[in-house]
């Protein structure tokens, strides 16, 4: 079985880059060119990038 490459495109600088084969939904990735950070979203096999604003909650109790 051929491995499908997961290639995404940076919204900031347009660089196309590859995600690791075992990437999981929610994983943080960054553009190798401009450093923009993203949350990888995987829904029904489709991979997309969501802007990561760092607005995650602090850990709870």
């Amino acid at each position, binding site marked *: 079985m051929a491995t499908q490459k997961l290639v995404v495109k940076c919204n900031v600088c347009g660089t196309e880059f590859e995600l690791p084969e075992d990437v999981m939904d929610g994983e*943080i990735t960054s553009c190798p060119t401009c450093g923009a950070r993203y*949350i990888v979203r995987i829904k029904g096999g489709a991979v997309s990038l969501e802007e990561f604003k760092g607005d*995650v909650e602090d850990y709870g109790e």
Partner: protein
Amino acid sequence: MIVIKVGGSVVCKDVSKVIQNLPKYADRAIIVHGGGCLVNEMLKRLGIEPKFLTHPGGLTSRYTDLETLKVFVMAMSWINKQIVASLHALGVEALGLTGADLGVVRAKRKEKVLIVDERGRQRVVDGGYVGRVVHIAADRLKPPPLKVLSPIAVSEKGELLNVDGDQLAFDVAKAVGARQLVLLSDVDGLIIGGRVVPHLTAEEAEELVKSEEVRGGMKRKLLMAAEAAKSGIEVVISNGLVENPIDVALNGSGT
């Protein structure tokens, strides 16, 4: 107004002395209780394995999934109703509340938290049923009647959320403009170098937080105390297991 936080260590060891001492404060107190010990006991008896999240920096926190939340609400409610029923026997008609009742404590669910997964990669996951308090309905919490509040909030979507009891007590104290916030646990107060520290300014508290002698829950209590002091609330950390613990706390025995 006085906000009294009855910590889990008091609830699980012996809450009777606090309850006996409460009637005289019924017209000017708001009670917030803990009970993590009973939550843990029930989780264990039910065979529910604790789940933890590891955050960047290495800190871990317990993950509250729906099953854990259910046990949390159940255990806290037993504690809440026991306190209310005991007060009834002493002639005090109290009202036990969660944040969902009358919407008194609203929180935002931690929908995104950053963790480090098993493979060492950073990932954004759902934070579980844990809330960050966003609104306290102060008018509905003021006595009479005496309110006994569980550390449970409600989200906009109608989810019950686990919130930190100390933080809730502090938020309530701020919201109602309390003069004092009494934190009752099973120690005599903040112990530094083997003795109880009688009083601290906000600056001293902040200084202490940085020291090695203060850890975990006490560290958070101190940070809160520092912030409270700035808001004009006197924070007393005192022992809830002694006779007349509230009298003792307000007479300056703790920190």
